[in-house]
């Protein structure tokens, strides 16, 4: 029950934060910069959090699975890539996908590495 509530509340604020950032960071030159930054920052934070706190307490799940899980999004990423392809912006679609996936993996690595270094 506690965990359910924590994940739900985390999800509430994660989605609201994502929406607020997307209103601030309007896409420059039709490139989905908002979703890209959100996903990269979220990847870093989740990796750091889940590596630092291996014990999944309701609070950790609320922040990780709830907030950061809802903050980052895959569906918007897919639809935005599709929209770029529909506009024949092949290079933008390709670089957006590559930056999201490779950048996301890179941010996860940095987050994990920083968390482990701190624990030593």
């Amino acid at each position: 029950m506690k965990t359910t509530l924590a994940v739900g509340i985390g999800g509430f604020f994660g989605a609201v934060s994502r929406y607020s950032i997307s209103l601030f960071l309007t896409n420059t030159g039709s490139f989905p910069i908002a979703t890209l930054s959100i996903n990269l920052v979220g990847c870093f934070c989740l990796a750091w959090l889940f590596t630092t706190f291996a014990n999944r307490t309701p609070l950790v799940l609320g922040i990780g699975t709830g907030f950061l899980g809802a903050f980052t999004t895959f569906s918007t990423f897919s639809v935005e890539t599709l929209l770029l392809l529909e506009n024949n912006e092949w290079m933008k679609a390709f670089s957006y996908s590559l930056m999201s996936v490779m950048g996301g993996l890179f941010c996860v690595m940095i987050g994990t590495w920083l968390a482990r270094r701190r624990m030593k």
Partner: protein
Amino acid sequence: MILVGIGGFFGALTRFYIGKWIVSAYPWATFFINITGAFALGLLFALNLSNWLWQLCGIGFLGAYTTFSTFGFEALQLIEKKKSWQAIGYICSTALFGLFFATLGFLVA
């Protein structure tokens, strides 16, 4: 803004419980979640919903239901377990199927 939050509340919970149901060494749960979410968002986008319904279901629920951070974290965990091929398969299949199913949702609408 409140609508986005309410959608996010239920989106995160749905993801959390699907993750509890589908238990496997390979991250099938997140794969399933992200693919179905991409399909549904493509569908909703093409349907041109009224503003409040889009904020509640599209940005809120489906945005929070799917996740990019868990996807990245799980990919790294596969790499660290020396399952590099599984990691590459997971990354490529999620990205490509996500795009494919978003397109499918678009076309179905």
